[in-house]
């Protein structure tokens, strides 16, 4: 098992060197960030049964706080190096997750998506109003190459960004995988499957949902921070229903019942949005149709289909 993970890490580390050109690396970067974001979303949808439409709020706010910190790092005497700034984004995600999550997780079932929708509209509309923090349509920019180095490492080129994302991605994925194996993670599953019974055995479902919500928001904030480092800009577009819908599509298309499903979904949809959109303006229509097909005929998503064909091929 450990050997398999090590192999995966080696492959991932070698990946940018297999593609020579810069644009491939930048697609890899956005894919990796989307994968991390989708994994954090799946803590809600897959593990907790919480259908959130507001997950982009934590991604966006984490990114905004980070971009302001990156901009501040240009001043002399600044001590926090850019490679450690995802911690700032995660902190922002944690904070806002704790605030908004308190309101959202009072409900489960059908009211939950509607309240998260209300929150994303609230923050998204506010983002267009308060330009001092969110910037205008162009958003807020920052220069990742400034500020102190971390043990001589500075995030300058796209490959630097890739390794920065990879390092934080490995940490975050390990933590998320660990989280769903803790008693709290197991309780999250229990609350998803039968909230009544889990409250009978002494666990308050609302509290369990709330804690999982905060954890998911924290990792979304981390992904947002990595995005801020990657594109050196954060725009109000990041906090919209559309952005939340995309992460939902990624997680669901990939497969919400499998830990690695959202990674597959993120890779497929990011590929569609960056490559397919060069050929046709209708890529979103195809994505929507594909999504409906998955909902109707393959609720396990791509991961579910792969697992089923694997069983079919090797079943005796």
């Amino acid at each position, binding site marked *: 098992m450990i050997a398999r993970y090590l192999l995966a890490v080696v492959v991932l580390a070698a990946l940018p060197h297999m593609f020579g050109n810069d644009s491939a690396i930048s697609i890899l970067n956005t894919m990796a960030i989307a994968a991390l974001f989708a994994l954090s979303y799946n803590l809600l949808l897959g593990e907790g*049964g919480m*259908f959130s439409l507001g997950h982009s709020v934590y991604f966006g706010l984490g990114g905004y706080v980070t971009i302001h910190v990156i901009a501040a790092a240009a001043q002399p005497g600044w001590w926090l190096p850019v490679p450690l700034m995802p911690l700032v984004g995660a902190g922002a995600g944690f904070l806002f997750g704790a605030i908004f999550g308190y*309101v959202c997780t*009072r*409900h*489960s*079932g*059908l*009211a*939950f*998506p*509607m*309240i998260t*929708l*209300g*929150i994303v*509209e*609230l923050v998204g*509309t*506010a983002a267009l*109003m*308060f330009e001092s923090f969110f910037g205008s349509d162009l958003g807020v920019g920052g220069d990742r190459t400034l500020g102190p180095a971390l043990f001589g490492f500075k995030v300058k080129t796209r490959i630097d960004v890739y390794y920065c994302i990879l390092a934080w991605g490995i940490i975050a994925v390990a933590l998320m995988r660990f989280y769903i194996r803790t008693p709290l993670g197991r309780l999250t599953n229990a609350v998803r499957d039968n909230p009544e019974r889990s409250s009978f055995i002494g666990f308050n479902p609302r509290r369990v949902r709330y804690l999982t919500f905060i954890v998911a928001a924290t990792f979304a904030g981390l992904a947002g921070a990595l995005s801020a480092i990657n594109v050196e800009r954060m725009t109000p577009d990041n906090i919209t*229903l559309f952005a939340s*819908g995309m992460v*939902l599509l990624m997680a*669901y298309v990939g497969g919400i019942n499998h830990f690695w499903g959202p990674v597959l979904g993120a890779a497929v949809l990011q590929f569609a949005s960056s490559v397919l959109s060069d050929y046709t303006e*209708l890529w*979103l*229509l195809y*994505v*929507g*149709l594909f*999504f*409906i097909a998955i*909902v*109707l005929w393959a*609720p396990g998503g791509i991961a579910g289909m792969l697992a089923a064909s694997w069983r079919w091929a090797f079943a005796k």
Partner: protein
Amino acid sequence: MLSSGLTLIFSMMGVLNFAHASLYMLGAYIAYQISVWFGFWPALLVAPLAIGVLGALIERYGLRAVHSRGHLAELLLTFGLAYVISEVVKLVWGNLNVPYDVPSALSFSLFELQGQAFPAYRAFMAVVSIAVFAGLWLMLKRTRIGLIVQASLTHPAMVSHLGHNTPRVFMLVFAVGSALAGLAGVIGGNYLVTEPGMAESLGAIIFVVVVVGGLGSLSGALLASVLIGIVQNGATLVDVPVPLTGVTVAHIAPLLPYILLVVVMIVRPRGLLGTRNA
């Protein structure tokens, strides 16, 4: 007015339908197309019918297939549909507004109120919506059909044991709800603007109204929509600065429905007139 109508249909259908606002948009576009070919009055009749048929098809071949997997799958399906409908609209009619105008027979001023002209079309909209809702209300509350519909929403198994075809009831309810959303698009699209973003701008407000009013409560939804309308329009007149932000109350008026949502969720989680906790 428009959103309150949509909200009522929305609560009646018993399915959380993300595509509801998209059907409203599609209704406006189809009405535009028909009014270009044949004029407004045929559009008033045909467009809602077309949307109703589409709604029936969505229910029959989409929602029914995933119904056994629970609400989440239904919600996801309509979410995907909202994407597809909005892309199809952009594909067929383009990214810009279409010139869908109020019919000339109704574009005169009915009377003047304090120097402000009151357009006859507004009166027409009010009459149509009130007639539709009075009819709907009577049918749901006073007839045998309404009884069966209401019973099917709360106790589907029992109703089908009594010999009614509940899947067909659901299909018809969904079709009628869709047709009414289409009708709202027909009479609202030319008064407002018919453009590809119209579904999104309305959709969020519908959700807020339904949750604030209380899930499954028709009168709660009506109350909430009136309340939100008053708060939002009233706030645009208040020129008092909000502390700490440097803007006035009028400036943040678009935020107020969502702030109201959050406050209601904290103070009264089941919504204003909701009877059950979701």
